[in-house]
């Protein structure tokens, strides 16, 4: 696939300073606007106020299910192969009664390493993995809680976010190996 060639800069753009002042002017514009009309703030008061991300926002991954309730993923290994961060670990297994024959026994994504490039979604021949949850807060108190595993990713839905840490605490049987629920994770700051 050919990449579109980068647009050439105009001579005005290449004199750096002009663009710099344009940027400053925009910022100053907002400052002035905010001074007179406080209802039209561009910034929001996160985390009390949260933004609804655009439809196509690339958030945390989820795994899709077939109508019969099994994961769509057949452990073809296309996504771990394409993943530039090498953060997807899949262990494939044989599904004896399923015509799909192959399924992921384990499917982990190490969110600490993921760079949200979306290649895994592009590569998937089964439309089994999507990044359409619009979840942008991927954070936890421990590293283990940032390994999103199969059970967790099947449970993720658009905009609804049980943080992985909480999910693993409530479902210890599906938590990744080595996961310990830290005291601070249970609410106390």
């Amino acid at each position, binding site marked *: 696939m050919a990449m579109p060639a980068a647009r050439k800069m105009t001579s005005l753009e290449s004199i750096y300073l002009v663009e710099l002042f344009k940027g400053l002017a925009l910022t100053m514009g907002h400052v002035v606007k905010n001074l007179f009309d406080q209802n039209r703030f561009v910034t929001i008061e996160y985390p009390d106020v949260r933004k609804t991300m655009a439809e196509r926002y690339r958030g945390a991954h989820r795994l899709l299910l077939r109508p019969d309730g099994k994961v769509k993923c*057949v*452990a*073809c*290994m*296309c996504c771990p*192969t394409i993943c530039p961060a090498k953060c997807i670990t899949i262990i*494939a*297994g*044989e599904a004896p009664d399923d*015509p*799909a*024959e*192959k399924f992921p026994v384990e499917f982990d994504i190490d969110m600490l390493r993921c760079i949200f490039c979306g290649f895994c979604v592009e590569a998937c*021949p*089964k439309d089994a993995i999507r990044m359409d949850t619009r979840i942008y807060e991927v954070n936890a108190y421990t590293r283990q809680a940032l390994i999103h595993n199969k059970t967790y990713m099947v449970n993720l839905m658009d905009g609804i976010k049980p943080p992985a840490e909480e999910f693993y605490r409530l479902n210890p049987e599906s938590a990744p190996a080595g996961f310990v629920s830290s005291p601070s994770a249970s609410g106390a700051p």
Partner: protein
Amino acid sequence: MPKVKINDIEVEVPAGTNMIEAAAVAGVDIPHYCYHPNLSVAGNCRMCLVDIVGGRAPEIACNMQARDGLAIRTDTPAVKKMRQSVMEFMLVNHPLDCPICDQSGECRLQDYYMEHGDYDSRGVEEKVSKKKRQDIGDKIVLDAERCVECSRCVRFGDEVTGTGDLRLMNRGDHTEIGMFPGERLQHHYQGNLADICPVGALTNRDFRFQRRVWYLKQTASICSGCATGCNIQVCHQEGEVFRYLPRRNDAVNKSWMCDEGREQVAGISGLKRILRSRVDGKTVDTEAALIALAARLKSATHVGVVLGSQATNEANWALLQTVRKNLKSARIFVTAGNDPGSFEYADKLLVDTDKNPNSAGVDLLAAFDGQVESWEAFGSAVADLDLLLVLEDDVVGRLAGRRTAAAIAYLGVSRNATSEAGSIVVPVCHPVEMDGSYVNRQGRVQRIRRAVNAAGDALPAWLIVDRLGAKLGVAPGTGMVAAAFNSMARAVPQMRGLEFKTLSEAGQQLIVETAPVAPTEATV
């Protein structure tokens, strides 16, 4: 030799050379499914159609033999169109199984589609469905839908194993590969079916879903299952070996290897591996074990040393040198027979009754030394020995309950009767973890190559012996594996002229005509 032209590139090949092979010599790849260099020509896939310069119609290259003046072209529009049409025809009923198919990544349909197919699908008809995931043998899973009816597997059964088990049945687009009802594959070469099948119709059960093939690295080596010494590729990823594949060598194993050979993979990281050195039941580091061993060898009066028919030439050479230079009164023996627990099967095709990969190498060195004693002599002498040093072979197991030496030191790969009886045990690398050479039953020197890192504290046997030698006084002077081989090759007349480096660089084994040496003749 006749001169032939492929796309105007002239090459000289022996008369009768298949034109697919001749083209390969010229650097031209002629795509093919049914042709296999070690099977008869069937000419049924039509993928290899080429134009003959001055000829009337295209012909299949696999059924064309090199003759003087023959000129073919593979780059004409007609050839391109033919390849594309053949691909389209083959894929008409082919399922979209790539995501779950183990052949993916080494599949001729995938590769040739990208190279020669690349058409817009005109498929409107329902695909013919056939039986999937069939259990046709202990080692093979058959998916009839994926078959391209090349008949390679049929010919393998007819010509190589002589079992005639797989058959193409019915006609037209209902042609289906299968077994006779109620029958299963019985032979010991099933794994080869998965190798020769150009698509994913026949896949290997042991390797099934284990790893995608594009992750695997390959290292050319030798199977250590028996004295045949089949040439193999060790397929591994990140220090783990996943499968052995046969490597073509028409002088040894053609393109085949036995299933028992493939099963050796399980032993590499198996639970039976010895990982740490042990002295009198206590785990120690290898250095301490070797110091203890050297001290005991020096103080013992009756020392026996057994060369290992499973160890490399380099290890045996180092051991021979170390003992002769440092322990003048020690007696050296060779072993015979097989370790208890090694597989029983043997046949005329490949699998030898001798399950040791380097018996011929040990015999060669024993004959060179002249003083090495036979297994029979060992049987009567062993009970009087104070200390017995064993290299790899399970000597205690082979003695089958007869009285053994007062104390045993064992340098070995896996736990067995000898390691259990051993007061000093030092872990040795598995053949996939080190470099070295074997001599097979034909007297062919073949290189094994290190594919993965050693498990635990294991070291190559020649290195252990080298260090032991230094502690005994005179090291055998085999500081590197190549030095060990080269000093051996300089000394042993049958190996004269061989060099470790050239053995490895060629990627093919050099032939050394070893004078037929029988250990008993040389030593009694």
